[in-house]
């Protein structure tokens, strides 16, 4: 009885491992930096649904990882990107640099932004030394702020 259970468990583990390798193309895993499973990026300020002035400071928190400027290749580190009014792109591509994707490439953990009045969404995404998201991507919840 016990032996059968162990066999089942083994088979399940094997299946799981197979499924995992199948779902992730090996070419990309080699390039993307691994992130700890419990790593998390989040907003200290503002919080979801907050009314904010036109000019405000976004403060960024990071759990279980460290911050390093862009170009510094060190395991377990990355630099912040603030996504404004946009969705994250494909996770295996470098994060674009434009007005909607603010790179904090010097290792900054806060940034002053000026937004026009209205509703805006903000999201944080950690990028590695080459601006590519980690595996799995360290991505914050997408929050909505109301600029008054």
């Amino acid at each position: 009885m016990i032996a059968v259970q162990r066999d089942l468990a083994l088979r399940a583990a094997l299946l799981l491992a197979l499924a995992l390798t199948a779902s992730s193309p090996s070419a990309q895993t080699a390039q993307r930096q691994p992130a700890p499973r419990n790593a998390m990026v989040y907003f200290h300020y503002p919080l979801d649904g907050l009314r904010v002035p036109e000019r405000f400071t976004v403060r960024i928190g990071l759990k279980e990882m460290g911050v390093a400027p862009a170009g510094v290749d060190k395991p377990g580190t990355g630099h912040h990107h603030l996504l404004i009014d946009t969705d994250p792109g494909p996770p295996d591509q470098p994060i674009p640099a434009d007005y909607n994707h603010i790179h904090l490439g010097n290792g900054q953990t806060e940034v002053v932004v000026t937004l026009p009045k209205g509703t805006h969404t903000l999201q944080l995404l950690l990028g590695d030394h080459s601006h590519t998201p980690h595996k799995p991507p360290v991505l914050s919840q997408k929050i909505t702020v109301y600029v008054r």
Partner: protein
Amino acid sequence: MRGLRLQLIVGVTAVFAAAMSVSIAQERARARSPAPTGAKLAFVDLQNNARIASKVTLRFSITGMEIAPAGTARRNAGHHHLLIDTELPPLGQPIPSDFNHLHFGGGQSEAEILLSPGRHTLQLLFADHDHVPHDPPVMSEKITVEVTAAPEEKPRTAAAPNARIFFVGLQDGAVIPPRSVVRFGQENIAIVPAGTKQDNAGHHHLLVDTELPPLDREIPSDFNHLHFGRGQTETELTLPPGEHTLQLLFADHEHVPHDPPVMSQKIRVRVQEASATASATRPPPATAAPPRAASGRTPAPNDAAVYFVYPRNGTRIFATSTIRFGLRNMGVAPAGVVRPNTGHHHLLIDVPTPPLDAAIPADLNHIHLGNGQTERKITLPPGEHTLQLILGDDQHVPHDPPIVSERITVYVGSAAKRSARR
């Protein structure tokens, strides 16, 4: 069928009403109230071609006649009408009542009106108890006003007319190294940090490679518009080689330029290559050692600051808590990484501030966050504890000036309370 009949009735009524009003008008035309010859009507304190806010209070002055509410028939009396963006109505009949013809039948001599931005014409016309202009008509000049955009509603902070700001020791056409200190000077205007409201005072903004922003609103904050909200009068500027323009613009507590705006001349500078050999070999910036300050320590921006996001000073925290760090105007880099304007955090628990010219010690009371972490979970025994943050450079040495937080006191659940609960 029923609809048609209804239309017919409406049409007939309209024709009848029109005929009635014409007959009334003709009748009224014969009965215009006389006006004295010296009567004069004018706007108070409003000139032709004036620039006004969209919400404005207009005042009317009548001389030689009296104001009487509509419906009160009196000799040499009447009430005001304001004509907006319209020609004079026919003088022999009552003044129409619509958005272009405002009646002040209560005898008001001032009115607050709201105008859209742009050019508008305004004219006053006096009329008798039946809203019919007098004979001869008493009216003001037709004036044109320009309504400026909405922000005009909030007056900008005043500046002395002889206030001026300028670059110190930096001439138009100067050749400067890629990393140089730019100094700002000011005359007849005071420097106060952003957020401090005061007339004839403000803080500097350096415009790099950009035109003047709109002067009636907040100066943008980006790489081209550098704010010196702490009242700094110098900055270290890093520019790529080539031609650049620099201009200073002073602004008030809300980053809005003054009235009149205080700005420097826009100067051109040429940034030369760092050095011939450096440009030939092109070393990656990470390996290029940043210039050391006179003290030999790594320089830091003088507006950089490190602070506790959590906990706040004087608060009670759990024995096991995550301490969260904030860093302003600098970046975080792991220990050993040489990058200008970066460092890594050190959390000091229950120890005084260490010497600032040597490497921060590494022990249980000096926690090094050498991997660039911005928070740390710690467990403290019950009681009172102090926490302090210091930024260290690649060698764990504090910067120059040192980036040190205030030393905060926190309390971990009181022992008495805990035993009482047990």
